[in-house]
C-alpha cells in the first residue's frame, strides 16, 4: 500500500507522519509537494499537522487553494482514504470535504498534552482495529481546535455515525459535543485534531495511534488484495 504525505509550506508534522508509515507500519510512503498535479499513484492521502501558509487569514484557508487540493478532492471522491490531522483537519473543513469550521480554543491557549479519546465509531476504515468505546491516549497540540457546526449539521453527523472520536475526560478546546474527529458521509475522509502519528511508540508515551494506520492498511488489503 502506498501513502502520500502532502507537504504544504508550513507543514511541520509531515516527518512524523512519514516516520509513522515507513518505520512503524512498514508501508510505502512518499512526500508530495503542495503543487503536485496528480495523486493517482497513491492509495491513501495524509494531510499532516502544522501551520500551512503560516495560518494567515484562517487555519487551512489558503492551503485549500493549493494546486494539489483539487487532486485530494478527486481522491476523496474515488473513495480513497484521506486523513487530515490537526492543520490537515482544518484544511479538510475549509475545502468542504468535511462539514463545520474551526474556532480558537475557548481558553485562548495553545494546548499541548496527551488526552484520552473515546472511539465512538469503530466501523470505519480508520478505526476497525479499535473496540467501540475504547479509550485511547493520543496527544493534541493546537490553538484552534474548537470544532463548530450548526444544529442541522450536528444532527446529520449523529444520524450518519460520522462522529468517530470524542474527548473522554475534559473537553480541552470547547468543541461542540466534545468532538475530536469526524468523517464524511461516505466514511473515507477523516479529520481529527489529536495526532495519532505522535502516538506510535510507548517509549514516547503511547502507541495507541498505531491501530489507526493499521486499520487503513487492513481495510485496503481486504478490499484490493484478498479479492485480487
Amino acid at each position, binding site marked *: 500500500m502506498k501513502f502520500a504525505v502532502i507537504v504544504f509550506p508550513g507543514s511541520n508534522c509531515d516527518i512524523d507522519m512519514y516516520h509513522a508509515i515507513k518505520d512503524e507500519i512498514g508501508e510505502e510512503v512518499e512526500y508530495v509537494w503542495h503543487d503536485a498535479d496528480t495523486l493517482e499513484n497513491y492509495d491513501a492521502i495524509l494531510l499532516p499537522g502544522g501551520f500551512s501558509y503560516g495560518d494567515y487569514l484562517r487555519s487551512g*484557508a489558503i492551503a485549500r487553494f493549493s494546486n494539489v487540493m483539487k487532486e485530494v478532492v478527486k481522491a476523496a471522491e474515488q473513495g480513497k482514504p484521506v486523513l487530515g490531522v490537526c492543520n490537515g483537519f482544518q484544511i479538510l473543513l475549509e475545502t468542504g470535504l468535511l462539514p463545520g*469550521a474551526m*474556532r480558537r480554543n*475557548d*481558553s485562548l491557549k495553545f494546548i499541548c498534552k496527551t488526552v484520552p479519546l473515546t472511539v465512538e465509531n469503530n466501523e470505519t476504515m480508520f478505526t476497525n482495529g479499535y473496540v467501540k468505546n475504547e479509550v485511547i491516549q493520543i496527544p493534541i497540540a493546537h490553538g484552534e481546535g474548537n470544532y463548530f457546526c450548526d444544529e442541522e449539521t450536528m444532527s446529520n453527523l449523529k444520524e450518519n455515525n460520522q462522529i468517530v472520536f470524542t474527548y473522554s475526560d475534559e473537553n480541552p478546546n*470547547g468543541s461542540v459535543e466534545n468532538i475530536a474527529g469526524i468523517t464524511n458521509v461516505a466514511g473515507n475522509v477523516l479529520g481529527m485534531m489529536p495526532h495519532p502519528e505522535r502516538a506510535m511508540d510507548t517509549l514516547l508515551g503511547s502507541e495507541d495511534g498505531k491501530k489507526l494506520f493499521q486499520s487503513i492498511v487492513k481495510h485496503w488489503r481486504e478490499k484490493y488484495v484478498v479479492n485480487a
Partner: protein
Amino acid sequence: MYKVKVYITLRESVLDPQGSAVKQALHSMEFKSVEDVRVGKYMELTLPSSVENVEAAVEEMCHRLLANPVIEDYRYEIEESVAQ
C-alpha cells in the same frame, strides 16, 4: 481604481473568546461599562477600474476565501477613486 474595504466578524451565534478576553482587559482598565467586545478582521483590497462586475467579484472573494461563512459574517464597501 477601486478601493474595497472588507469587514469580517464572527457570527453573533458564535462565541468570541478573543473578544471576551479584550472585554476583561477593558474592565480591568476601569472601563467597566463595556458590555461586549467582538474582535474581527479588516482588509483593504485595491483593484483597477477595468474590473467588470466588481461587486460580484468581491462577493465571491469574501464568500470563498476571505470569510468562512460557517462562522463568520462579512460586509464590504467599494469606493471608486479617479487617478490623479
